[in-house]
């Protein structure tokens, strides 16, 4: 038997739940087919979510899943240009014609789909993004001149979490696009995902007892994002998310962290997401999305 997991036509952090529900139990016992034929668009969160699923299956020594590529030539070309198929080919058995990636990525991509395996990769990610982020964040989104540095700081801290806490590698991608449905403005989006142990297991030995029966994926996310705790006993730890929250607040942005079966968000006025979504379909590791909207004309 092969279990078919349909990739949502419009694949973002919301429709990710439909994708996660498709897997059933983890690790899946059946052969898996990830069917992206009907895909029309995927956010960086969606793209690296698919790679995370493939990575989790490989790490669980599961059978190599199948992947049918999108029918739309435009979608295929875009996914190729951001480097998705290059990495997907290592994790999935690809079916369908994959176009060659262009030498340079599209202009709205701040960072292609990039693996994060070690601290050295965090350096590379920050170096890559620093050249283009100022032009886009200040010039296009209307953030203050120093925004590129703050944006890179958030990116650096989010990527370091993979190396320090996940126990495995992960993925990052950064893109600018128009957020029509919820905001009607351009946004810069950082998406970071790993297939590691997740927040609950990472914090369990040091913080579970404090929460008693409340301990679970949601409580672990709350401890990390709201209370700033870390599994390390060093009192200076846990400041990365605190700093990111400061930037989010300043730019009226959103941060959302999904781990295991819960998702915790700091929700700005322009979004209608719930702060804590619990009892979601299980998905391995942790997925972080940071969304920074173009500033409204009067605040520029």
């Amino acid at each position, binding site marked *: 038997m092969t279990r078919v997991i349909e990739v949502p036509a419009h694949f973002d952090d919301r429709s990710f739940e439909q994708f996660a529900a498709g897997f059933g139990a983890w690790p899946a016992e059946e052969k898996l087919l990830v069917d992206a034929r009907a895909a029309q668009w995927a956010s960086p969160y969606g793209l690296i979510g698919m790679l995370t699923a493939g990575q989790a299956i490989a790490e669980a020594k599961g059978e190599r899943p199948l992947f049918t590529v999108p029918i739309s030539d435009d979608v295929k070309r875009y996914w190729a240009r951001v480097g998705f198929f290059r990495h997907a080919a290592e994790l999935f058995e690809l079916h369908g014609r994959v176009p060659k990636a262009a030498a340079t990525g599209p202009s709205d991509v701040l960072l292609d789909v990039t693996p994060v395996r070690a*601290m050295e990769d*965090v*350096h590379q990610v*920050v*170096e890559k993004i*620093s050249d283009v982020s100022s032009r886009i964040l200040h010039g296009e989104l209307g953030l203050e001149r*120093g925004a590129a*540095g*703050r944006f*890179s*700081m958030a990116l*650096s*801290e989010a990527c*370091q979490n993979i*190396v*320090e806490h996940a126990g495995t590698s992960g993925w990052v991608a950064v893109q600018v696009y128009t957020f029509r449905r919820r905001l009607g403005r351009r946004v810069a989006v950082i998406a970071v995902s790993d297939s590691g142990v997740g927040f609950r297991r990472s914090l369990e030995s040091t913080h579970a007892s404090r929460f008693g029966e409340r301990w679970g994926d949601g409580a672990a996310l709350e401890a990390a994002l709201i209370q700033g705790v870390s599994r390390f006993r060093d*009192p*200076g730890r846990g*400041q*990365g998310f*605190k*700093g990111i929250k*400061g930037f989010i607040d300043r730019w009226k942005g959103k941060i959302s962290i999904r781990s295991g079966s819960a998702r915790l968000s700091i929700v700005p006025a322009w979004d209608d997401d719930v702060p804590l979504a619990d009892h979601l379909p299980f998905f391995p590791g942790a997925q972080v999305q940071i969304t920074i909207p173009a500033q409204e004309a009067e605040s520029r």
Partner: protein
Amino acid sequence: MIETIRIGHLLRETALSPYRNLVTRPTGAAVRTRIEDALSRSDCLTALLDFSDIELLDFSCAEEIVAKLLLAQASHRPRFVVLRGLRDDQHDAIEQVLTHHRLAVAALIAGGEPMLLGWVLPDARAAFTCVCRLGRACAGDVAEALSWPESRASEALEALTLHRLVRPEGDLRYPLLVA
């Protein structure tokens, strides 16, 4: 005596590559070790850490370099520490990590004007600005300049001295980079 340490130079030596970004804890810890090595070989009273070649300083590196360097001052031979060449976003990172530890450091902003980053009581912050403006001051000078009772000025100067944010000489307190 002032020992100037160019952080960008140390970063390039440490990472063996032309990085301009101070990111990740291991990098920050390695740079801090280099700073401590340099200071251990120096007779200086004041360490001037120059960040002007640095593009980005993330929270992890701000913690590893600045906060841990100041925390270690308590156990090592204490020095006065001054930061120079910081950009606005780097101020944010240092301000946050020092506030977390209830520490503070003096920094020179563009134009050479001194400011405090981190946590001190409001009176100490006002006294710091006053000492820098006057060039040197005793409790009576600060009290007169700020229209405070002398005991209040004295407490504020004591807090600055304790945090090693002014240089004491008898009853007088000097800004850190004034000879």
